[in-house]
Protein backbone atom coordinates (compact mmCIF):
# COMPACT_ATOMS: atom_id res chain seq x y z
CA UNK A 1 0.00 0.00 0.00
CA UNK A 2 1.17 3.50 -0.67
CA UNK A 3 0.20 7.04 0.13
CA UNK A 4 -0.36 8.55 -3.28
CA UNK A 5 -1.03 11.95 -4.74
CA UNK A 6 -3.94 11.10 -6.98
CA UNK A 7 -5.41 13.29 -9.64
CA UNK A 8 -8.81 14.90 -9.20
CA UNK A 9 -10.98 14.52 -12.28
CA UNK A 10 -13.86 16.56 -10.98
CA UNK A 11 -14.96 18.15 -7.75
CA UNK A 12 -18.44 19.46 -8.15
CA UNK A 13 -21.40 20.59 -6.10
CA UNK A 14 -23.82 17.79 -5.42
CA UNK A 15 -26.02 19.78 -3.10
CA UNK A 16 -25.75 22.78 -0.83
CA UNK A 17 -22.41 22.32 0.97
CA UNK A 18 -22.09 18.86 -0.51
CA UNK A 19 -19.50 17.91 -3.10
CA UNK A 20 -18.68 14.87 -5.12
CA UNK A 21 -15.02 14.37 -5.91
CA UNK A 22 -13.92 12.00 -8.65
CA UNK A 23 -10.39 10.72 -8.39
CA UNK A 24 -8.24 8.76 -10.79
CA UNK A 25 -6.78 5.95 -8.70
CA UNK A 26 -6.32 2.49 -10.24
CA UNK A 27 -5.03 1.05 -6.96
CA UNK A 28 -8.20 2.04 -5.12
CA UNK A 29 -10.57 0.91 -7.84
CA UNK A 30 -8.81 -2.44 -8.10
CA UNK A 31 -8.82 -3.21 -4.40
CA UNK A 32 -11.81 -1.50 -2.85
CA UNK A 33 -14.62 -3.42 -1.21
CA UNK A 34 -17.96 -2.22 0.07
CA UNK A 35 -17.76 -0.08 3.21
CA UNK A 36 -14.11 0.81 2.82
CA UNK A 37 -12.77 4.31 3.05
CA UNK A 38 -9.86 6.51 2.03
CA UNK A 39 -7.91 8.78 4.35
CA UNK A 40 -7.14 12.20 2.97
CA UNK A 41 -4.60 14.83 3.99
CA UNK A 42 -6.37 18.19 3.91
CA UNK A 43 -3.50 20.65 3.61
CA UNK A 44 -0.31 21.13 1.66
CA UNK A 45 2.56 18.96 2.88
CA UNK A 46 4.43 21.79 4.64
CA UNK A 47 1.41 22.69 6.79
CA UNK A 48 0.40 21.25 10.15
CA UNK A 49 -3.17 22.47 10.10
CA UNK A 50 -5.34 20.42 9.94
CA UNK A 51 -2.94 17.84 11.28
CA UNK A 52 -4.86 14.59 11.00
CA UNK A 53 -6.13 12.93 7.85
CA UNK A 54 -9.86 12.91 7.17
CA UNK A 55 -11.64 9.64 6.37
CA UNK A 56 -14.23 9.39 3.57
CA UNK A 57 -16.20 6.39 2.44
CA UNK A 58 -15.79 5.33 -1.13
CA UNK A 59 -19.06 6.42 -2.69
CA UNK A 60 -18.81 4.90 -6.11
CA UNK A 61 -16.35 3.34 -8.54
CA UNK A 62 -16.12 3.36 -12.30
CA UNK A 63 -13.96 0.35 -12.96
CA UNK A 64 -13.56 1.02 -16.64
CA UNK A 65 -12.02 4.42 -16.08
CA UNK A 66 -10.07 3.60 -12.93
CA UNK A 67 -12.03 6.30 -11.21
CA UNK A 68 -13.72 6.33 -7.84
CA UNK A 69 -15.62 9.06 -6.07
CA UNK A 70 -16.35 10.34 -2.59
CA UNK A 71 -19.32 12.37 -1.50
CA UNK A 72 -18.64 14.83 1.29
CA UNK A 73 -20.27 17.61 3.21
CA UNK A 74 -18.27 20.71 4.11
CA UNK A 75 -18.08 20.74 7.91
CA UNK A 76 -14.83 22.36 8.91
CA UNK A 77 -11.43 23.33 7.65
CA UNK A 78 -10.52 19.94 6.22
CA UNK A 79 -13.56 19.61 4.02
CA UNK A 80 -13.40 23.30 3.15
CA UNK A 81 -9.89 22.77 1.84
CA UNK A 82 -11.13 19.83 -0.21
CA UNK A 83 -13.99 21.82 -1.65
CA UNK A 84 -11.52 24.36 -3.01
CA UNK A 85 -9.52 21.82 -4.98
CA UNK A 86 -9.95 21.81 -8.72
CA UNK A 87 -9.87 19.35 -11.55
CA UNK A 88 -6.24 18.56 -12.20
CA UNK A 89 -5.13 19.16 -8.61
CA UNK A 90 -3.99 16.15 -6.66
CA UNK A 91 -5.20 14.81 -3.37
CA UNK A 92 -2.89 13.03 -0.95
CA UNK A 93 -4.64 9.88 0.06
CA UNK A 94 -4.22 6.39 1.48
CA UNK A 95 -6.59 3.50 0.98
CA UNK A 96 -8.65 1.51 0.66
CA UNK A 97 -8.85 1.18 4.45
CA UNK A 98 -11.15 -0.69 6.79
CA UNK A 99 -12.45 -4.21 6.41
CA UNK A 100 -14.72 -4.68 3.38
CA UNK A 101 -18.20 -5.71 4.48
CA UNK A 102 -18.99 -9.39 4.18
CA UNK A 103 -19.55 -10.81 0.69
CA UNK A 104 -22.90 -9.33 -0.05
CA UNK A 105 -26.22 -10.99 0.56
CA UNK A 106 -26.74 -14.66 1.02
CA UNK A 107 -30.39 -13.92 0.96
CA UNK A 108 -30.16 -12.30 -2.43
CA UNK A 109 -32.04 -9.20 -1.33
CA UNK A 110 -30.44 -6.14 0.16
CA UNK A 111 -32.06 -3.45 2.28
CA UNK A 112 -29.99 -0.34 2.83
CA UNK A 113 -31.11 2.09 5.53
CA UNK A 114 -29.39 5.45 5.47
CA UNK A 115 -29.51 8.78 7.22
CA UNK A 116 -27.92 11.98 5.89
CA UNK A 117 -24.35 11.59 4.69
CA UNK A 118 -24.58 7.99 5.90
CA UNK A 119 -25.73 7.14 2.41
CA UNK A 120 -22.14 7.45 1.15
CA UNK A 121 -20.97 3.91 1.94
CA UNK A 122 -24.42 2.49 1.18
CA UNK A 123 -24.12 3.75 -2.36
CA UNK A 124 -21.08 1.57 -3.01
CA UNK A 125 -22.74 -1.45 -1.43
CA UNK A 126 -25.66 -0.83 -3.69
CA UNK A 127 -23.42 -0.50 -6.75
CA UNK A 128 -21.59 -3.74 -6.03
CA UNK A 129 -24.78 -5.66 -5.29
CA UNK A 130 -26.58 -4.27 -8.31
CA UNK A 131 -23.61 -5.21 -10.51
CA UNK A 132 -23.91 -8.74 -9.15
CA UNK A 133 -27.57 -8.74 -10.09
CA UNK A 134 -28.86 -8.59 -6.53
CA UNK A 135 -32.10 -6.86 -5.69
CA UNK A 136 -31.48 -3.69 -3.70
CA UNK A 137 -33.96 -1.56 -1.78
CA UNK A 138 -33.12 1.69 -0.09
CA UNK A 139 -34.81 3.51 2.79
CA UNK A 140 -33.26 6.83 3.57
CA UNK A 141 -34.01 9.79 5.78
CA UNK A 142 -32.81 13.38 5.52
CA UNK A 143 -33.24 16.76 7.16
CA UNK A 144 -34.22 18.33 3.86
CA UNK A 145 -33.74 17.77 0.19
CA UNK A 146 -30.09 18.69 -0.06
CA UNK A 147 -29.10 15.19 -1.19
CA UNK A 148 -31.80 15.10 -3.84
CA UNK A 149 -29.26 14.40 -6.57
CA UNK A 150 -28.81 10.97 -5.09
CA UNK A 151 -32.19 9.97 -6.39
CA UNK A 152 -30.82 10.19 -9.91
CA UNK A 153 -27.89 7.94 -9.00
CA UNK A 154 -30.21 5.35 -7.49
CA UNK A 155 -32.50 5.44 -10.48
CA UNK A 156 -29.57 4.81 -12.77
CA UNK A 157 -28.57 1.81 -10.70
CA UNK A 158 -32.13 0.54 -11.01
CA UNK A 159 -32.61 0.45 -7.28
CA UNK A 160 -35.93 0.62 -5.45
CA UNK A 161 -36.03 3.43 -2.90
CA UNK A 162 -38.19 5.35 -0.50
CA UNK A 163 -37.14 8.70 0.91
CA UNK A 164 -38.11 10.55 4.07
CA UNK A 165 -37.34 14.10 5.03
CA UNK A 166 -37.95 15.94 8.25
CA UNK A 167 -39.19 19.03 6.48
CA UNK A 168 -41.24 17.11 3.95
CA UNK A 169 -39.40 18.63 1.02
CA UNK A 170 -38.33 15.25 -0.35
CA UNK A 171 -40.30 12.02 -0.26
CA UNK A 172 -42.44 11.36 2.76
CA UNK A 173 -42.34 13.71 5.76
CA UNK A 174 -40.91 11.99 8.80
CA UNK A 175 -37.99 9.87 9.99
CA UNK A 176 -36.68 6.83 8.23
CA UNK A 177 -37.25 4.62 11.25
CA UNK A 178 -40.86 5.66 11.76
CA UNK A 179 -42.35 2.77 9.86
CA UNK A 180 -39.45 0.42 9.88
CA UNK A 181 -41.34 -2.40 11.60
CA UNK A 182 -44.46 -2.13 9.46
CA UNK A 183 -43.55 -5.31 7.65
CA UNK A 184 -41.13 -7.37 9.74
CA UNK A 185 -41.48 -10.33 7.44
CA UNK A 186 -40.14 -8.35 4.52
CA UNK A 187 -37.24 -7.19 6.66
CA UNK A 188 -36.33 -10.76 7.47
CA UNK A 189 -36.00 -11.48 3.79
CA UNK A 190 -33.21 -8.96 3.42
CA UNK A 191 -29.64 -8.49 4.39
CA UNK A 192 -29.78 -5.11 6.09
CA UNK A 193 -27.03 -2.52 6.04
CA UNK A 194 -27.42 0.78 7.79
CA UNK A 195 -25.38 3.93 8.16
CA UNK A 196 -26.25 7.31 9.60
CA UNK A 197 -26.24 9.49 12.70
CA UNK A 198 -25.93 7.75 16.05
CA UNK A 199 -29.46 8.84 16.99
CA UNK A 200 -30.85 6.98 13.99
CA UNK A 201 -28.80 3.88 14.66
CA UNK A 202 -29.96 3.80 18.26
CA UNK A 203 -33.61 3.81 17.24
CA UNK A 204 -32.96 1.23 14.57
CA UNK A 205 -31.17 -0.99 17.05
CA UNK A 206 -34.09 -0.80 19.47
CA UNK A 207 -36.71 -1.42 16.82
CA UNK A 208 -34.93 -4.29 15.09
CA UNK A 209 -34.15 -5.91 18.41
CA UNK A 210 -37.85 -6.20 19.13
CA UNK A 211 -38.27 -8.47 16.16
CA UNK A 212 -34.85 -10.00 16.56
CA UNK A 213 -33.74 -8.90 13.14
CA UNK A 214 -30.03 -8.67 12.35
CA UNK A 215 -28.40 -5.77 10.59
CA UNK A 216 -24.93 -4.58 9.75
CA UNK A 217 -24.12 -1.04 10.88
CA UNK A 218 -21.41 1.02 9.27
CA UNK A 219 -19.97 3.29 11.94
CA UNK A 220 -17.95 6.47 12.12
CA UNK A 221 -15.61 7.55 14.89
CA UNK A 222 -12.93 10.22 15.17
CA UNK A 223 -9.74 8.72 13.80
CA UNK A 224 -6.12 9.17 14.68
CA UNK A 225 -4.46 7.04 12.03
CA UNK A 226 -7.10 5.14 10.03
CA UNK A 227 -4.81 2.12 9.72
CA UNK A 228 -5.23 0.43 13.06
CA UNK A 229 -2.15 1.50 14.96
CA UNK A 230 -3.38 4.03 17.50
CA UNK A 231 -6.51 2.43 18.96
CA UNK A 232 -8.13 5.84 18.77
CA UNK A 233 -11.27 5.04 16.79
CA UNK A 234 -12.85 2.41 18.98
CA UNK A 235 -16.51 1.67 19.56
CA UNK A 236 -17.89 -0.24 22.49
CA UNK A 237 -19.13 -3.67 21.52
CA UNK A 238 -20.86 -6.45 23.45
CA UNK A 239 -18.92 -9.71 23.49
CA UNK A 240 -19.59 -13.03 25.17
CA UNK A 241 -17.17 -12.17 27.93
CA UNK A 242 -18.25 -8.59 28.59
CA UNK A 243 -17.53 -5.51 26.55
CA UNK A 244 -14.72 -4.77 24.19
CA UNK A 245 -13.39 -1.75 22.35
CA UNK A 246 -13.02 -2.44 18.65
CA UNK A 247 -11.40 -0.21 16.05
CA UNK A 248 -13.68 1.26 13.42
CA UNK A 249 -10.74 1.49 11.02
CA UNK A 250 -9.66 -2.10 11.45
CA UNK A 251 -12.34 -4.44 12.79
CA UNK A 252 -14.88 -2.04 11.23
CA UNK A 253 -16.33 0.11 9.87
CA UNK A 254 -19.05 -2.58 9.69
CA UNK A 255 -20.35 -4.07 12.92
CA UNK A 256 -23.28 -6.24 13.88
CA UNK A 257 -25.80 -3.56 14.92
CA UNK A 258 -27.13 -5.49 17.91
CA UNK A 259 -23.66 -5.76 19.42
CA UNK A 260 -22.80 -2.07 19.37
CA UNK A 261 -23.21 -0.22 22.64
CA UNK A 262 -24.12 3.42 22.05
CA UNK A 263 -23.80 5.39 25.26
Amino acid at each position, binding site marked *: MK*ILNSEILSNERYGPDIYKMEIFAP*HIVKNVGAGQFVNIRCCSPDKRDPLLRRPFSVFDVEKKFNVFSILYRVRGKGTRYMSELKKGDTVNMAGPLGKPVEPVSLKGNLLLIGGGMGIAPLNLISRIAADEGKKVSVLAGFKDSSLLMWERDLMRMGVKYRMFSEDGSWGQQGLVCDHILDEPKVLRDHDIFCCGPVEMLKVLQRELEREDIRATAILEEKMGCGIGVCNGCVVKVKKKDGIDYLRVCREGPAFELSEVIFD
Partner: protein
Amino acid sequence: MTDRLFKWEKENEKDVPGEERSSRKPDMSVEIGRIGLKNPLVACSGTFSHGEEHSNFYDISVLGAVTTKSYSLKPRKGNPPPRICETPAGMLNSIGLQNDGIDVFIKSHLAQMKKDGAGIILSIFGKDSEEFKKVALRILDVKADIIAVELNLSCPNVEKDGTSFCAFPEEVKKVVDAVVSMLDIPVIAKLSPNHDNIIQSAEAAKQAGAEAISLINTAVGMAVDVETYRPLLGNITGGLSGPAIKPIALAKTYILARENILPVIGMGGIFDYRDVLEFMIAGASAVGLGTVNLIEYDAGEKILLDLEDYLVKKNINNIRHFTGRIRI
Protein backbone atom coordinates in the same frame (compact mmCIF):
# COMPACT_ATOMS: atom_id res chain seq x y z
CA MET B 1 4.70 8.30 -6.33
CA THR B 2 2.06 10.27 -8.12
CA ASP B 3 -0.82 8.26 -9.41
CA ARG B 4 -1.57 10.06 -12.62
CA LEU B 5 -3.87 9.76 -15.52
CA PHE B 6 -1.13 10.14 -18.08
CA LYS B 7 1.51 7.54 -17.90
CA TRP B 8 4.17 9.55 -19.65
CA GLU B 9 4.22 12.04 -16.82
CA LYS B 10 5.49 9.24 -14.64
CA GLU B 11 8.53 8.89 -16.82
CA ASN B 12 9.67 12.35 -15.89
CA GLU B 13 9.68 11.53 -12.22
CA LYS B 14 12.67 9.25 -12.35
CA ASP B 15 15.60 10.20 -10.20
CA VAL B 16 17.85 12.75 -11.77
CA PRO B 17 21.00 10.92 -12.86
CA GLY B 18 24.16 11.77 -10.98
CA GLU B 19 22.31 11.82 -7.70
CA GLU B 20 23.43 8.39 -6.71
CA ARG B 21 23.22 8.40 -2.99
CA SER B 22 24.82 5.08 -2.21
CA SER B 23 28.32 5.93 -3.37
CA ARG B 24 29.04 8.11 -0.34
CA LYS B 25 26.48 6.80 2.09
CA PRO B 26 27.06 8.42 5.47
CA ASP B 27 27.40 6.42 8.67
CA MET B 28 24.02 6.69 10.34
CA SER B 29 24.63 4.40 13.29
CA VAL B 30 24.32 5.62 16.85
CA GLU B 31 25.04 4.19 20.25
CA ILE B 32 22.90 4.75 23.29
CA GLY B 33 24.83 3.21 26.12
CA ARG B 34 24.95 -0.48 25.29
CA ILE B 35 22.26 -0.08 22.66
CA GLY B 36 23.56 0.11 19.12
CA LEU B 37 21.15 1.26 16.41
CA LYS B 38 21.82 1.38 12.71
CA ASN B 39 20.32 4.83 12.62
CA PRO B 40 18.78 7.20 15.17
CA LEU B 41 15.14 6.79 14.07
CA VAL B 42 13.00 4.91 16.55
CA ALA B 43 9.25 4.47 16.14
CA CYS B 44 7.53 5.70 19.33
CA SER B 45 5.46 3.49 21.53
CA GLY B 46 1.74 3.52 20.80
CA THR B 47 2.04 5.09 17.37
CA PHE B 48 3.33 2.08 15.48
CA SER B 49 1.44 -0.77 17.12
CA HIS B 50 3.87 -3.63 16.54
CA GLY B 51 4.81 -2.53 13.08
CA GLU B 52 2.56 -4.75 11.02
CA GLU B 53 0.43 -1.96 9.55
CA HIS B 54 3.33 0.27 8.62
CA SER B 55 4.97 -2.68 6.89
CA ASN B 56 2.31 -2.20 4.26
CA PHE B 57 3.89 1.13 3.44
CA TYR B 58 7.61 0.48 3.65
CA ASP B 59 10.22 -1.97 4.83
CA ILE B 60 10.25 -1.09 8.51
CA SER B 61 13.54 -2.88 9.04
CA VAL B 62 15.21 0.30 7.75
CA LEU B 63 14.39 1.96 11.08
CA GLY B 64 16.85 2.13 13.92
CA ALA B 65 14.27 0.37 16.07
CA VAL B 66 10.55 -0.04 16.62
CA THR B 67 9.10 0.51 20.07
CA THR B 68 6.01 -1.57 20.69
CA LYS B 69 2.78 -0.36 22.20
CA SER B 70 3.14 -0.46 26.00
CA TYR B 71 2.24 -3.92 27.25
CA SER B 72 0.96 -4.69 30.71
CA LEU B 73 0.72 -7.96 32.63
CA LYS B 74 -2.96 -8.49 31.84
CA PRO B 75 -4.80 -7.24 28.78
CA ARG B 76 -6.23 -3.73 29.23
CA LYS B 77 -9.38 -2.55 27.54
CA GLY B 78 -8.31 1.09 27.66
CA ASN B 79 -10.44 4.18 28.17
CA PRO B 80 -13.94 4.86 26.89
CA PRO B 81 -14.22 6.71 23.55
CA PRO B 82 -13.88 9.32 22.21
CA ARG B 83 -10.17 8.83 22.53
CA ILE B 84 -8.82 11.19 19.88
CA CYS B 85 -9.20 14.88 19.37
CA GLU B 86 -7.36 17.15 17.01
CA THR B 87 -5.90 20.38 18.37
CA PRO B 88 -3.92 23.16 16.66
CA ALA B 89 -0.87 21.41 15.18
CA GLY B 90 -1.38 18.60 17.66
CA MET B 91 -3.66 15.90 18.90
CA LEU B 92 -4.94 14.64 22.20
CA ASN B 93 -5.29 10.95 22.92
CA SER B 94 -6.67 9.09 25.86
CA ILE B 95 -6.18 5.53 24.67
CA GLY B 96 -5.40 4.40 28.19
CA LEU B 97 -2.90 1.72 27.24
CA GLN B 98 -5.32 -0.64 25.54
CA ASN B 99 -3.26 -3.76 24.85
CA ASP B 100 -3.51 -7.52 24.62
CA GLY B 101 -1.22 -8.16 27.56
CA ILE B 102 2.40 -9.22 27.52
CA ASP B 103 1.60 -12.90 27.03
CA VAL B 104 -0.24 -12.35 23.80
CA PHE B 105 2.56 -10.12 22.62
CA ILE B 106 5.13 -12.79 23.26
CA LYS B 107 3.02 -15.57 21.83
CA SER B 108 1.83 -13.90 18.68
CA HIS B 109 2.96 -10.37 17.86
CA LEU B 110 6.63 -10.99 18.56
CA ALA B 111 6.89 -13.54 15.78
CA GLN B 112 5.41 -11.07 13.33
CA MET B 113 7.83 -8.41 14.47
CA LYS B 114 10.81 -10.69 14.08
CA LYS B 115 9.68 -11.41 10.55
CA ASP B 116 9.44 -7.71 9.77
CA GLY B 117 13.04 -7.48 10.83
CA ALA B 118 13.23 -4.20 12.71
CA GLY B 119 15.10 -3.96 15.99
CA ILE B 120 12.56 -4.28 18.80
CA ILE B 121 12.27 -2.10 21.86
CA LEU B 122 9.58 -3.58 24.06
CA SER B 123 7.61 -1.00 25.97
CA ILE B 124 6.05 -2.20 29.20
CA PHE B 125 3.79 -0.77 31.83
CA GLY B 126 2.73 -1.86 35.28
CA LYS B 127 0.66 -0.31 38.01
CA ASP B 128 3.52 -0.64 40.47
CA SER B 129 7.06 -1.96 40.63
CA GLU B 130 5.80 -5.42 41.49
CA GLU B 131 3.77 -5.58 38.32
CA PHE B 132 6.65 -4.23 36.27
CA LYS B 133 8.75 -7.00 37.72
CA LYS B 134 6.22 -9.62 36.72
CA VAL B 135 6.12 -8.31 33.18
CA ALA B 136 9.91 -8.34 33.07
CA LEU B 137 9.85 -11.95 34.17
CA ARG B 138 7.78 -12.93 31.17
CA ILE B 139 10.28 -11.27 28.90
CA LEU B 140 13.20 -13.31 30.20
CA ASP B 141 12.58 -16.11 27.73
CA VAL B 142 12.53 -13.88 24.70
CA LYS B 143 15.14 -11.38 25.71
CA ALA B 144 17.39 -12.46 22.86
CA ASP B 145 14.80 -11.11 20.45
CA ILE B 146 14.68 -7.58 21.76
CA ILE B 147 17.18 -4.77 21.90
CA ALA B 148 15.89 -3.08 25.01
CA VAL B 149 12.93 -2.69 27.31
CA GLU B 150 11.35 0.73 27.63
CA LEU B 151 9.52 1.48 30.86
CA ASN B 152 6.51 3.67 30.36
CA LEU B 153 6.70 5.70 33.55
CA SER B 154 4.86 8.60 32.04
CA CYS B 155 1.48 7.72 30.56
CA PRO B 156 -0.85 10.59 31.41
CA ASN B 157 -3.94 8.49 30.72
CA VAL B 158 -4.06 6.02 33.52
CA GLU B 159 -3.98 8.03 36.70
CA LYS B 160 -6.22 10.96 37.56
CA ASP B 161 -5.23 14.21 35.85
CA GLY B 162 -2.21 12.63 34.27
CA THR B 163 -0.10 11.89 37.32
CA SER B 164 2.43 9.17 36.59
CA PHE B 165 5.39 7.40 38.14
CA CYS B 166 7.82 9.98 36.95
CA ALA B 167 6.19 12.56 39.22
CA PHE B 168 8.29 10.90 41.89
CA PRO B 169 11.98 10.16 41.30
CA GLU B 170 11.96 7.57 44.07
CA GLU B 171 9.22 5.69 42.19
CA VAL B 172 11.27 5.85 39.04
CA LYS B 173 14.15 4.33 40.91
CA LYS B 174 12.04 1.55 42.38
CA VAL B 175 10.56 0.55 39.07
CA VAL B 176 13.81 0.66 37.12
CA ASP B 177 15.45 -1.29 39.90
CA ALA B 178 12.74 -3.93 39.83
CA VAL B 179 13.14 -4.47 36.11
CA VAL B 180 16.92 -4.27 35.95
CA SER B 181 17.17 -6.84 38.70
CA MET B 182 15.17 -9.27 36.58
CA LEU B 183 16.47 -8.63 33.10
CA ASP B 184 20.02 -8.22 31.92
CA ILE B 185 19.15 -6.32 28.76
CA PRO B 186 19.26 -2.53 28.42
CA VAL B 187 16.44 -0.65 30.10
CA ILE B 188 15.16 2.72 28.92
CA ALA B 189 13.10 4.95 31.22
CA LYS B 190 10.49 7.06 29.50
CA LEU B 191 9.72 10.36 31.20
CA SER B 192 7.03 12.96 30.83
CA PRO B 193 7.00 16.73 30.34
CA ASN B 194 4.35 17.11 33.03
CA HIS B 195 6.75 17.22 35.93
CA ASP B 196 9.65 19.56 36.47
CA ASN B 197 11.97 16.96 37.90
CA ILE B 198 13.35 15.26 34.81
CA ILE B 199 16.91 15.69 36.00
CA GLN B 200 16.15 14.05 39.32
CA SER B 201 14.18 11.29 37.63
CA ALA B 202 16.99 10.66 35.18
CA GLU B 203 19.48 10.51 38.06
CA ALA B 204 17.24 8.03 39.81
CA ALA B 205 16.90 5.94 36.67
CA LYS B 206 20.66 5.94 36.21
CA GLN B 207 21.34 4.90 39.78
CA ALA B 208 18.99 1.99 39.33
CA GLY B 209 20.83 0.92 36.18
CA ALA B 210 18.85 2.36 33.27
CA GLU B 211 20.68 2.70 29.98
CA ALA B 212 18.89 5.71 28.50
CA ILE B 213 16.02 8.15 28.87
CA SER B 214 13.16 8.51 26.39
CA LEU B 215 11.75 11.98 26.47
CA ILE B 216 8.96 13.15 26.17
CA ASN B 217 5.73 11.29 26.59
CA THR B 218 2.62 13.35 25.93
CA ALA B 219 1.72 16.53 27.84
CA VAL B 220 -1.52 16.59 29.83
CA GLY B 221 -4.14 18.44 27.84
CA MET B 222 -7.84 18.83 27.35
CA ALA B 223 -10.49 20.07 24.97
CA VAL B 224 -14.14 20.89 25.48
CA ASP B 225 -17.14 20.65 23.18
CA VAL B 226 -18.69 24.08 23.43
CA GLU B 227 -22.10 22.88 22.30
CA THR B 228 -22.52 19.96 24.68
CA TYR B 229 -20.29 21.19 27.53
CA ARG B 230 -18.60 17.81 27.48
CA PRO B 231 -14.88 17.09 27.36
CA LEU B 232 -13.93 15.95 23.88
CA LEU B 233 -12.22 12.91 25.36
CA GLY B 234 -14.01 10.15 27.23
CA ASN B 235 -11.27 10.29 29.86
CA ILE B 236 -11.68 14.10 30.31
CA THR B 237 -7.96 14.86 30.02
CA GLY B 238 -5.55 13.25 27.58
CA GLY B 239 -2.06 13.45 26.24
CA LEU B 240 -1.01 16.14 23.79
CA SER B 241 1.39 15.12 21.03
CA GLY B 242 2.52 16.34 17.64
CA PRO B 243 4.25 19.48 16.31
CA ALA B 244 2.51 21.68 18.89
CA ILE B 245 4.71 20.24 21.66
CA LYS B 246 7.96 20.15 19.72
CA PRO B 247 9.37 23.30 21.37
CA ILE B 248 8.61 21.86 24.82
CA ALA B 249 10.18 18.52 23.94
CA LEU B 250 13.28 20.20 22.57
CA ALA B 251 13.73 22.27 25.71
CA LYS B 252 13.39 19.18 27.90
CA THR B 253 15.87 17.30 25.71
CA TYR B 254 18.36 20.15 25.87
CA ILE B 255 18.00 20.64 29.62
CA LEU B 256 18.46 16.95 30.35
CA ALA B 257 21.08 16.02 27.76
CA ARG B 258 23.31 18.85 28.92
CA GLU B 259 23.55 17.18 32.32
CA ASN B 260 25.21 14.13 30.78
CA ILE B 261 23.38 11.74 33.05
CA LEU B 262 22.20 9.25 30.46
CA PRO B 263 21.85 9.35 26.68
CA VAL B 264 18.55 10.80 25.58
CA ILE B 265 16.14 9.50 22.95
CA GLY B 266 14.36 12.74 22.08
CA MET B 267 10.80 12.83 20.79
CA GLY B 268 7.78 15.09 20.55
CA GLY B 269 6.42 16.50 17.33
CA ILE B 270 9.09 15.30 14.93
CA PHE B 271 7.66 15.50 11.43
CA ASP B 272 10.66 15.84 9.14
CA TYR B 273 14.41 15.40 8.97
CA ARG B 274 15.07 18.95 10.14
CA ASP B 275 13.14 18.23 13.32
CA VAL B 276 15.38 15.19 13.83
CA LEU B 277 18.46 17.38 13.50
CA GLU B 278 17.05 19.93 15.95
CA PHE B 279 16.68 17.24 18.59
CA MET B 280 20.13 15.83 17.96
CA ILE B 281 21.78 19.25 18.01
CA ALA B 282 19.98 19.92 21.29
CA GLY B 283 21.55 16.78 22.69
CA ALA B 284 19.54 13.71 21.69
CA SER B 285 21.49 10.57 20.77
CA ALA B 286 18.49 9.13 18.93
CA VAL B 287 14.96 10.31 18.25
CA GLY B 288 11.43 8.99 18.34
CA LEU B 289 8.86 9.33 15.58
CA GLY B 290 5.38 9.37 17.09
CA THR B 291 2.34 11.20 15.85
CA VAL B 292 3.83 11.54 12.37
CA ASN B 293 3.34 7.78 11.94
CA LEU B 294 -0.40 8.28 12.23
CA ILE B 295 -0.45 10.78 9.39
CA GLU B 296 2.42 10.05 7.04
CA TYR B 297 2.53 6.29 7.13
CA ASP B 298 5.87 6.16 5.34
CA ALA B 299 7.48 8.89 7.45
CA GLY B 300 10.17 6.59 8.82
CA GLU B 301 11.55 5.75 5.41
CA LYS B 302 11.17 9.25 4.04
CA ILE B 303 12.86 10.98 6.97
CA LEU B 304 15.72 8.50 6.85
CA LEU B 305 16.32 9.15 3.16
CA ASP B 306 16.10 12.90 3.68
CA LEU B 307 18.59 12.71 6.53
CA GLU B 308 21.03 10.73 4.44
CA ASP B 309 20.65 13.15 1.56
CA TYR B 310 21.25 16.08 3.84
CA LEU B 311 24.40 14.58 5.30
CA VAL B 312 25.71 13.88 1.82
CA LYS B 313 24.89 17.40 0.71
CA LYS B 314 26.65 18.87 3.71
CA ASN B 315 29.55 16.46 3.43
CA ILE B 316 29.03 15.16 6.94
CA ASN B 317 29.83 11.48 7.06
CA ASN B 318 28.53 10.65 10.48
CA ILE B 319 25.13 11.33 12.01
CA ARG B 320 26.66 11.34 15.50
CA HIS B 321 28.28 14.60 14.46
CA PHE B 322 25.09 16.39 15.43
CA THR B 323 24.46 15.16 18.94
CA GLY B 324 24.91 18.00 21.40
CA ARG B 325 26.47 20.28 18.78
CA ILE B 326 24.41 23.24 19.87
CA ARG B 327 26.33 26.52 19.74
CA ILE B 328 25.49 28.66 22.72
